[in-house]
Structures are given as structure tokens and as C-alpha cells.
């Protein structure tokens, strides 16, 4: 039954409804695949196979009666950032090593309400801070893709590296992920999968372990654009438990797919042509432009003049919010408490120093510094003002275009243990150069696999939409997906 794991979410849902196979068979196929692959790929940090089998049996009973939700019987992987009641949730941090939530995040509750089956929790960078999955307490994930003729292990990207690797290696039908600066789209691009970050506020953040609250947004990683529409549909909802959740109806995302794109104006930003970007990525971008032109879209040159300031702006705002959010880990109410220390301050300092990893500590300190007396205006308030400039760039650009096309990442997947990136944090941060702008502006962005580089590694294109216009983003992505005919899968070595 290994073939079942290769199905798309859509075809699996259809097969379950038609009773071609049962959810129990499908779930067992994934359990077998995970047991074989996970020792090599390290995508799952916790498996919940008993729960999965019970959920599958309940789904099969519903399906037999002709009942069930939109995801009835579909086995999914859940990023370890989502609180799952009774199932350990660590955000891949030592400080939450033994944390077992007593409540469920709204996004995952929505999935269970639609009949989804949980296979387990997926690996990620600690507190979603990282671009290579190397900051996880539980060790890095390995990308199922390898460069042609090389046996070197590659990063699946980050922070949602477990989600991306699991979807690419057929270890779940689809996965939840989250995106603060590119953490859905960069791993999707590195693994030949589709990832969408919706408009800020589309998904409830209730029960998601917080990193930078004004930037964090949930979204799925899937095998196809159609699957992304189905998953996003199930994940989005208005939620009174999150005051930034949008009180707006969620459109039928799948209904946008297949619409004509004739006359749609595609913006191509001058400022995304960066020095030092591999020629293959520029060529893929040109190819994407040509595909959309062939489909009848109109190509418009646009300018987003503050693009180069987005990353430095992000590296003030995100650490500032993180330093505040992570102040909750004090070793008192939950999480790690250092042993053998007496005073209150010693307990705080030792618990946090033992519990947090190096990158998280570094970001907490940057955040504390830019918020401290004397620097608050020069750094933090300044960054908030630049953030508005970046958002205004998009507002202005959307006067002359409907959607924007860019590369998703400045490179293909790189080797784990990259010394240059390890030595210089700024080099690692540059991974998000094309994706971070949409987090600052709150806009939807999607990465779709569009081709392979000369090493045989997948490359992605990014589609950025107007606020609340995920429908058009998905439709444009599906045109690119069709034109690219991307069907490559990593050769199985695990």
C-alpha cells in the first residue's frame, strides 16, 4: 500500500469518499512510511500513531455513513508550534521539553473538526527562529532532495523544515506550518512543495507558540496548489480568542482555481533583481513571466523602493517582539526550571540560559537592546516607521498591478552545517530577502515549485497578493504549476 502515500490531499479525500480505500489503510501506509524514513530525515519529533489509528477508525465510520468533513480521514502532520491537547508541544525548544498543553490551538481544532487525522508533531527551528532547521533542540531535519552526484545532506529550510521535508517525502498528505519572515515559503521552495502564508489575521494565532506576534501567521505546506487551497480553507476562521483574527467570511479558495488570468496585471519589482543571485534563479523568474504572459496576463514593471530595508527592519521588530513574548518563560508556571539554585533571579537566569538555544538567546538580546532606554526611538520606533514605508510601497504598486511575481529564495537548498552561514548570522538571515516584505506588510504570499536547477534541486517562484486576495494568488500559482509541469520527486535514499 506504499503507493497511497504518494497521493495528493485532493485525490486522497476523493478516494476516501469513493471508498476506494479506507482511512485506516491510508493511515497505516503513512505510519509505515514514517517508521522507515524518520530515523534518516528526522521530520517528526513526536508521533501519535495510536491517536491516528483511533481518529482513522472514527473517520471510516463516518465515511461509511456518507458523512464527514472536508478533510475526513486525511492524515496530516502538525508543526510542533501548534498546541495539541495531551500531546507534547515543544516548539523544538529545551525550555518546553516536557510541555503537554491542556488545550488545543484553534487552527488544529479546525482541522480535527473537519475530520483530519494527526500523525504527529513536526520538527522546526527553535521557536521558529532559523532558516535551516539547525536550531531545533531535537536535531536538524534532512531534506529528502540531494544534489546530483553528491551524497551531502541538505537543509530542508526553516523554520518549517519538518513540515516541508515530511510533505516532500510523502510522510503525510499535507502539513501545517507557520511563517514570520519566510518560514513557510523558503522550506517549500527548498523541497519542491507548495507553501502559502495567508493575509495576517486569516488564521487564528490562539494556541500557536508565539515568536513575533505582529508577523506570525499560520499556513499549510502541501504537494499541490489545489491542496494548498483545501488546507488553507480548513485552517482559516474568525476566532474571538485572537483579537487580531479577522472577522470576515473565508472565501471558497478552490473556486478561484482555473479562472482565466487574461488581463490580470502581474507586477515585476525592479528591486528584487539582486546582485549575486544565481543566474538560474533569474532565468526561472523570466520563465515564470513568460508563462503568465502566455496565459494572457499583462506584465507590469513596478517599484518597491524600500525592499532593501525590509530585512534590517525585520531584525529589529521580530527580536523586539520575541524578547517580550519569551519573557513568559520564567521557570515558574510551566517549562524548564533550573535545579540546585536558590534565589529568584538565579532561577530565572539559569532556567532561561539552560532552556533556550544559542540563536534564541541571541535574538532575545537583540530585542532587549533595541527596546532598552536610549535605543528605543533610534531602533524600534525607527523600524516601525520603515515598516510603514515598506507597506506603502505595496499599496502604491497595487495601483498598477493585481499580483506580484518574484523568486521565492535567493538560492536552492544549501548543505547542512554551512560554515559561512553559521559564522555570520546576517548571511543566514538573507535567506528571507524575498519573503520577509509580505510579513511586514501583512500580505499573502505563496511559493510554488517551478523548476530544477543544474544540480537537480527544486526552485520556487513567489506570488504575492493584495490583502485578503489569496484566491488570485492561488489561481496564479496554479497557472505557474501547470505551465511548469513540475512533477519531480526526490530519489528515495532513506
Amino acid at each position, binding site marked *: 500500500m506504499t503507493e497511497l502515500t504518494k497521493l495528493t490531499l485532493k485525490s486522497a479525500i476523493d478516494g476516501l469518499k469513493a471508498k476506494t480505500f479506507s482511512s485506516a489503510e491510508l493511515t497505516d501506509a503513512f505510519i509505515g512510511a514514517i517508521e522507515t524514513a524518520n530515523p534518516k530525515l528526522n521530520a517528526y519529533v513526536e508521533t501519535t500513531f495510536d491517536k491516528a489509528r483511533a481518529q482513522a477508525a472514527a473517520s471510516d465510520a463516518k465515511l461509511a455513513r456518507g458523512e464527514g468533513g472536508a478533510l475526513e480521514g486525511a492524515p496530516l502532520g502538525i508543526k510542533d508550534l501548534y498546541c495539541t491537547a495531551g500531546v507534547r508541544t515543544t516548539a523544538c525548544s529545551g525550555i518546553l521539553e516536557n510541555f503537554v498543553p491542556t488545550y488545543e490551538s484553534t487552527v488544529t481544532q479546525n482541522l480535527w473538526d473537519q475530520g483530519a487525522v494527526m500523525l504527529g508533531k513536526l520538527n522546526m527551528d527553535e521557536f521558529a527562529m532559523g532558516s535551516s532547521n539547525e536550531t531545533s533542540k531535537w536535531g536538524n531535519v534532512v531534506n529528502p532532495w540531494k544534489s546530483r552526484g553528491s551524497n551531502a545532506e541538505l537543509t530542508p529550510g526553516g523554520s518549517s523544515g519538518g513540515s516541508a521535508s515530511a510533505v516532500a517525502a510523502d510522510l503525510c498528505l499535507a502539513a501545517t506550518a507557520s511563517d514570520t519572515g519566510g518560514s513557510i515559503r523558503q522550506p517549500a521552495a527548498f523541497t519542491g512543495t507548495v507553501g502559502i502564508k495567508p493575509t495576517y*489575521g486569516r488564521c487564528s494565532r490562539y494556541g500557536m507558540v508565539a515568536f513575533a506576534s505582529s508577523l506570525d501567521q499560520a499556513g499549510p505546506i502541501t504537494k499541490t496548489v489545489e491542496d494548498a487551497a483545501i488546507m488553507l480553507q480548513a485552517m482559516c476562521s474568525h476566532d474571538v480568542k485572537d483579537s487580531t483574527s479577522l472577522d470576515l467570511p473565508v472565501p471558497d479558495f478552490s473556486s478561484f482555481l482555473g479562472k482565466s488570468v487574461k488581463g490580470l496585471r502581474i507586477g515585476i519589482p525592479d528591486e528584487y533583481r539582486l546582485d549575486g543571485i544565481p543566474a538560474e534563479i533569474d532565468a526561472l523568474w523570466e520563465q515564470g513571466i513568460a508563462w503568465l504572459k502566455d496565459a494572457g496576463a499583462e506584465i507590469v514593471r513596478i517599484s518597491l523602493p524600500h525592499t532593501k530595508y525590509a530585512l534590517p527592519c525585520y531584525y*529589529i521588530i521580530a527580536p523586539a517582539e520575541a524578547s517580550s513574548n519569551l519573557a513568559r518563560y520564567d521557570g515558574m*508556571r510551566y517549562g524548564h526550571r533550573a535545579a540546585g539554585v536558590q*534565589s529568584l533571579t*538565579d532561577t530565572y537566569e539559569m532556567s532561561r540560559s539552560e532552556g533556550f538555544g544559542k540563536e534564541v538567546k541571541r535574538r532575545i538580546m537583540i530585542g*532587549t537592546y533595541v527596546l532598552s532606554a536610549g535605543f528605543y526611538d533610534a531602533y524600534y520606533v525607527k523600524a516601525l516607521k520603515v515598516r510603514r514605508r515598506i507597506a506603502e510601497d505595496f499599496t502604491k504598486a497595487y495601483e498598477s498591478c493585481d499580483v506580484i511575481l518574484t523568486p521565492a529564495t535567493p538560492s536552492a537548498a544549501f548543505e547542512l552545517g554551512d560554515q559561512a552561514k553559521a559564522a555570520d548570522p546576517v548571511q543566514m538571515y538573507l535567506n528571507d530577502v524575498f519573503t520577509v516584505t509580505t510579513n511586514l506588510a501583512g500580505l499573502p504570499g505563496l511559493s510554488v515549485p517551478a523548476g530544477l536547477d543544474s544540480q537537480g534541486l527544486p526552485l520556487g517562484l513567489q506570488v504575492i497578493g493584495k490583502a485578503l486576495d489569496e484566491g488570485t494568488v492561488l489561481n496564479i500559482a496554479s497557472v505557474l504549476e501547470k505551465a511548469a509541469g513540475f512533477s519531480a520527486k526526490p530519489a528515495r535514499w532513506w
Partner: protein
Amino acid sequence: MAIDVATVKKVASLSRLRESDERLQSLAGELNGILGWIEQLNEVDVTGVEPMTTAIEMPQPMREDVVTDGDKVAEIVANAPKSVDGFFVVPKVVE
């Protein structure tokens, strides 16, 4: 605005983090690198620009001021490193 080791030590203390002297030294270099890179924001003219504090402009939602939750003592202390009779046990706070 170069950061010296003494400043890093102060920031670590404000962050309630304790780092070894060796690590503080290395952090000074790392933070200088990152903050030096961030300095380019000074090129942007932000005269008259309002700080952007939220990704999407929307009115603050209001709700009825009623009790909607409670009676969850066991759940609240379920993950506590130390608790007794539904109370968190913490180090001595007042000398």
C-alpha cells in the same frame, strides 16, 4: 554605536540570561555585526511617518464583560515545575 562586553553583560542581565564571559565576548562581535547591518535604516527618510504597529488596520474588537472561562486549577498547574494543592511553588520572592 559599538557594543562592548560590559553592554552585552547588561543586556544579558536585562534579558534574564546568564552567559559565560567567553560567550559574552563572542556575542559582542555578533551583535555589532547585526546592528551594524541594521544601521542602513538611517538612510530612510521617515519624517512625518507614523509608526506601523499592526499588520492589518482594523478596529479593536469589543466583547461583553462576562466570565467565559474558569475552574481550571488542575489544568493551569498541570505543567508547573513544582506545585502544591493547586498553587505554584516558587523560590522565595521577598527576603
